[in-house]
């Protein structure tokens, strides 16, 4: 042990083992060779040290893992690190890049090393990141990014900004080629926020920040006093859609990323991982029937709200589904699940939230999810129970026409197998837009209680029964004049009610749609899994996964 004269030692001076020498060759060799061996070892070690013990401790004091520790949560196997000594300082330039074996898949990973210059982007590491991103696309493997970066390295000047541009560009170029998951750790401002959002999915955990600028700048520029968490914590971004998923801690984020990955294909040329299922595809799911009876046998009757995830869990393999953006716009549920082993993207109207009507937020949520599924060969199932787009000043002001239109565009652009099951309501424009036969659905099914109609009973009756209405009005005037006003009103109201009921009976059903071939068949409650599963199997047998091609459309 060294006999330095120190007053405080944090090592064991009585330890017997001596550090193992790198070269244990029996042959004496030239000093210069020994030195090169030592230097080589030092070079291998240098990036792993990061910013040194003090910086690592600071990272840990914030309850954050280092990038190397995060990698261990993703896979128990050692990562294959690439371009380890990148940068003038030969320290890897504060970003770690490599290929990781996760299960039976190769995944490209990068992670900022916050202990080294706060994980900032400088003149050269943008290029390093871009190189990894392009490699992922070239090899056709998904990308996981572990972001923990304070932004551009100011001393690097314009070089840092260029670095960002290079990385931005790379990530946009591979969009639609390989899927990516961005994990947000630590404090990410400016470019550190924009870059990861170019990926497919973003996951943020508690005690982190994402924002254009931090609270300090906000205070200076606007005088607004706000905490980092209230400005850009997961509570904010889980609700505004910037983040797709939020978790309580780093481990939660990393594990959630693995779960999400299990539904994603490696690239746009292949299908997502198929897992043969032990859950019979033809099981009769009486629960569906019970669910509907329970729902409709309530004072609200056919207008009773229905939590669509209760239906969803009946039809997917072993009841398992994975919801995206679960904290926002739950009037439209977007989720992955499997039917018969095939990954399916579900887009489901949820009348339990805001009547399930499609508003700006729901439209954005749905659009993004559909476009993802479409690019990556994920078949889609629409569960339809919607009375329309949300009307009103607020929605118009926010541009519901634009956002609703984008949702419709995304649906029209679908080229992967897609089906729609109309469960209850399918009214007007929403019916037409929502993956109907003529927007390109491969199959549209309807349950017997489906109400496919131009409008609901109140409005519909006004148009359809003009003569009858006129007769009722005339009768009312006559009786009112001849005596009892109250009696006249009673008769009139009963007549109107009867008309509404007649409208519901005669026109709010699947019959016309069936006759026109807009709906392929009736699906009885209890058989949805079988009908959807068997048709999906047929569609998948006859579908060849491939990258999207064809002309670029104007929107998005």
């Amino acid at each position: 042990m060294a006999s330095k004269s120190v007053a405080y030692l944090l090592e064991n001076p009585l330890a017997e083992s001596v550090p193992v020498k790198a070269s244990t060759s029996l042959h004496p060799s030239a000093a210069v060779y020994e030195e090169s061996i030592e230097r080589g070892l030092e070079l291998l070690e240098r990036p792993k040290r990061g910013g040194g013990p003090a910086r690592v401790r600071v990272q840990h004091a914030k309850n954050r893992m280092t990038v190397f520790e995060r990698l261990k949560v993703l896979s128990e196997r050692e990562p294959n690190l690439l371009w380890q000594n990148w940068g003038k300082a030969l320290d890897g330039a504060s970003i770690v890049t490599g290929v990781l074996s996760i299960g039976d898949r190769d995944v490209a990973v990068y992670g900022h090393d916050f202990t080294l210059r706060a994980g900032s982007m400088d003149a050269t590491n943008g290029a390093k990141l871009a190189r990894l991103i392009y490699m992922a696309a070239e090899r056709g493997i998904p990308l996981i990014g572990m972001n923990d970066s304070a932004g551009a390295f100011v001393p690097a000047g314009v070089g840092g900004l260029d670095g960002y541009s290079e990385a931005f560009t790379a990530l946009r170029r591979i969009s639609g080629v390989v899927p990516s998951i961005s994990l947000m750790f630590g404090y990410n401002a400016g470019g550190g926020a924009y870059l990861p959002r170019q990926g497919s999915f973003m996951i943020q955990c508690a005690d982190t920040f994402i924002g254009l600028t931090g609270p300090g700048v906000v205070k200076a520029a606007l005088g607004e006093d706000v905490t980092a968490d209230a400005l850009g914590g997961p509570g904010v971004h889980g609700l505004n859609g910037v983040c797709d998923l939020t978790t309580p801690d780093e481990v939660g984020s990393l594990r959630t990323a693995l779960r999400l990955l299990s539904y994603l294909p490696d690239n746009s040329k292949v299908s997502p991982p198929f897992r043969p299922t032990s859950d019979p595809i033809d099981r009769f799911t009486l629960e569906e029937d019970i669910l509907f009876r329970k729902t409709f046998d309530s004072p609200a009757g056919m207008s009773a709200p229905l939590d669509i995830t209760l239906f969803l869990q009946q039809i997917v393999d072993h009841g398992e589904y994975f919801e995206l953006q679960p904290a926002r716009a739950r009037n439209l549920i977007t989720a992955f699940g499997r039917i018969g082993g095939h990954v399916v993207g579900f887009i489901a109207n949820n009348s339990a939230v805001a009547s399930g009507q499609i508003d700006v937020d729901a439209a954005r949520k749905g659009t993004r999810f559909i476009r993802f599924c479409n690019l990556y060969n994920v078949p889609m199932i629409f569960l339809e129970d919607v009375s329309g787009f949300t009307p009103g000043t607020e929605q118009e002001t926010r541009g519901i026409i634009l956002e609703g239109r984008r949702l419709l565009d995304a649906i029209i652009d679908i080229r992967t197998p897609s089906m729609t099951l109309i469960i209850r309501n399918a009214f007007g424009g929403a019916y037409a837009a929502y993956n109907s036969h003529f927007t390109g659905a491969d199959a549209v099914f309807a349950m017997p209680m489906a109400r496919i109609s131009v409008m609901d009973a109140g409005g519909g009756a006004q148009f359809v029964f003009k003569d009858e209405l006129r007769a009722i009005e005339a009768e009312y005037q006559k009786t009112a004049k001849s005596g009892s006003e109250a009696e006249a009103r009673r008769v009139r109201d009963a007549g109107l009610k009867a008309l509404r009921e007649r409208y519901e009976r005669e026109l709010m059903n699947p019959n016309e749609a069936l006759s026109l071939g807009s709906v392929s068949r009736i699906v009885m409650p209890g058989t949805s899994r079988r009908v959807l599963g068997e048709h999906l199997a047929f569609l998948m047998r006859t579908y060849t996964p491939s990258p999207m091609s064809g002309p670029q459309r104007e929107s998005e």
Partner: protein
Amino acid sequence: MLDRDGVSRRFADCESPWLRSFSLEGLKVLVVCRGPVRLEAFQVFDEIGVREYGMLLSEKDSVVYPRCLAPELRSFRFPQNVHRVTDYTGAGQEQKKKSIREIVAIARDFGYTHVFAGYGFMAEDADLVSAIERAGVGFMGPSSHVLRRAGAKDEAKKLARSLGNAVIPGIDDVSARALLARLSDRKGLEKTAREHGLAFSFHSSESLEANAEALLQAGFAKGVELVSIAELQKQAELVCAGIWRDYPTHRIRFKHIGGGGGKGQRVVSKPDQIAAAVMDVCAESKVIEAGSNRNFLIELNIERTRHNEIQLIGNGEWCLSLGGRDCSVQMHEQKLVEVSLTKELLDAEIERATGKAREVLIGDRDYLARMEAESEKFGEATGLDSVSTFECIVDGFDFFFMEMNTRIQVEHAVTELVYRLRFTNPDDASEQFSVERLIEAMALLAAHGKRVPKPERVRRHLSSIEVRVNATNRALQPHAGGLIRSWSPPLAGELRFDQGIGIRNPDTNSFVYYNVAGAYDSNIALVLTHGESRRENYERMAEVMRRMELRGDDLQTNADVHYGLIQWLLGRGVMAEPNTRFMTSYLGAVGRLAQVAGDLDLELAFQQGLRATPDAEARAALEAKETLLLRPLARLFANPHLLGGFLGRYDGELWKTDGAKARFAANPVQLLERLYHFLDLEPRADKPPAEQIWEHDAAILDAARAFYATVEARTGARDFDALAKLFAGKPVPALAGGDDALWGACVAAHKGFQLGLELLLLVPRVGARSGFLDLRVDDDLSIAFPEPFADETRAAELARALAPPPPAAFDEIVTPMGGTFYSREAPHLPPLVEEGQHFDAGQPLFVIEVMKMFNKVAAPHPGTVIKNLMAGRDGAIVKKGERVFSIEPDERREVESDEAVARRRREATLALLA
């Protein structure tokens, strides 16, 4: 079953005709319960080879909550045998009848030979069991005639009395007795009725007391005074005198029949207190007014109640007791922990014990033997033909029969771990088999009844314990709605009944997220361990709970409560005998701990330490230890249950306290090591780095451990003082030879390793300041709680610090917990408050239903409802902290400013450091 050689086999596969005659292959069993026992039953049925089984799937199992599908379905072998029902039990009588009809129809139509009801509500329902029997289907459990004899409480008590079993001495008819004291007979009653014009006719088929009771009721109905308070006082004195003849040292409790929550109750210890106590009971119950129903119970006051029960098994001809279980650790009348109590265990522990404890254990062994003997007699008298539990309350070495539960209990596995059943062929003693699962024994009895010979009980393990993992917060209040995202698999030696939540998706092998909706109750799982002594048993349980990782969103369980408690018991005395009030006081003490720990600012304490360093080198060395020290301390102080467990476990061993002062009793490096271990932060390959000691911290701790191990090996110096002396003295050749530099390094290492460790003394100081360290197990094994924890009301108040209400602005009322929201107590009643209405502090404002418990939420302060933000949302599922009303408070309260909080914490921290 196990054959003679202990090999697991099925009867049908045996060569011996006697063994083969017990085949269970003909059975087709319909399981009509849920909870952990459902999957357990399936597993036992698979093991013993019943032909087929089926299950009921209720709406709450399938379509009421998302992500809450019955997890058993993922591996269910007979999908065609899943039968749908609305619910297992109905809300009212009509519903129940309908449920029974449904179950019977399913059992008959699908050819089931037997119905198994586990420990569900239906298991003890004589109507269900009779209906099943009438339908010609077997009931796997006690027959209806057993239920009728033993299931009804008054009947059971009568039977117990007739058998000479002890029941709590006392009476419930003091008013009738007082009336008869004056009127004495039929004539007197009829005359009084006429005088007052009361509708009363004497029924000679009923007892005189019953007729007196009827007359009293007629009097109450018309507000006619028949018995005066003076008469009641006199009668009470007579009754008490009778009780004191048999129990001269006990106190006696008076309890008004309409009483509740401790109101209308008095406890007397001397005859001259009786008159005043009767008056108080009447006054407090507001029955002073003439003609009010003033009847109250008079019974022996059980001071230190423990809850014991005996497991029984029988076939109608023989009945065998399988030892006891102590279930005293309870909260809100719900059992939390159950430990085995057997003669064999007590024999072994008596050997180990000394002094007073030994005497107590000998007394325990004695009463256990009596309790077992009485239970067997009772079982035989009822014709018990399956399994049941004989429940008693225990006071010192006296026990009193409470009731018999005619079903398998939640905690049955506690017994399975300590005894197995060995059956011997009466005609050929060489033929034997053993059964280790009570459900298997139930199947055997259901199928072969009288043919099953009386078994012997054979010791398996000496001790076993079960803890119930429930969805509750740290104050043990129900908390529904959490989502389990992962659960570490059971350790070796851990028995976990988790309803199948741990069954992974068979296709992808992923853990299936599970929503703890709490449809039926708050229980998530049962966890058991065993051991060859109570201590070894508890050590294993502590290890299981230490390593259990249950992660999720908004998920709260009592796992940390269990972990802390078991560690506390390991430190204070594993043979401790908590009573049924223990948990209330314990939670109060932990609550107080939470308050004191909450005022601690660790960052500030560390800065103080840095400031005190003599030079830059010391400062740098201390800075290098920042996370090593602060991380485990922060985790410990953030979780009062863990803190309490650590304090209980290591008080006296790692430190000693004297009033508010604390000093190390061992090398503090050892304390730090134990702390890392206690918090499950030691390095382990299967854990994420964020849940282990950081590498740089491990390097220091490992070096320190190795250093002190060498020092001890070479010099014998081990504890804090000896080490201090050693390194303050002259060079020690055994360590450094003659190498001065090495000696210097050793001294520096000691200084370096010890640097800053005085921060660890905050742990005992917080313990001492909160009074938590005063909780001890006395020599007589009882647990002494100092004030204020002994007082139930104050303890409950302190426990609230464990689950502080969600942050709410002063001008709104938010939900204090997640659950189902109701604005009114019942559908036909008006809302508890309405817009514009004024309310007082403590007035109920709305109801949150969590796991069948309807929690009335009281106003924290007086105010007026401005707006009802939950209008029209009755029955909605709400989360904790959702806004219900915006209000105008009567008084604007001063909210403690951030600066004031900081100042308070600063002062508290500096005081603890002083």
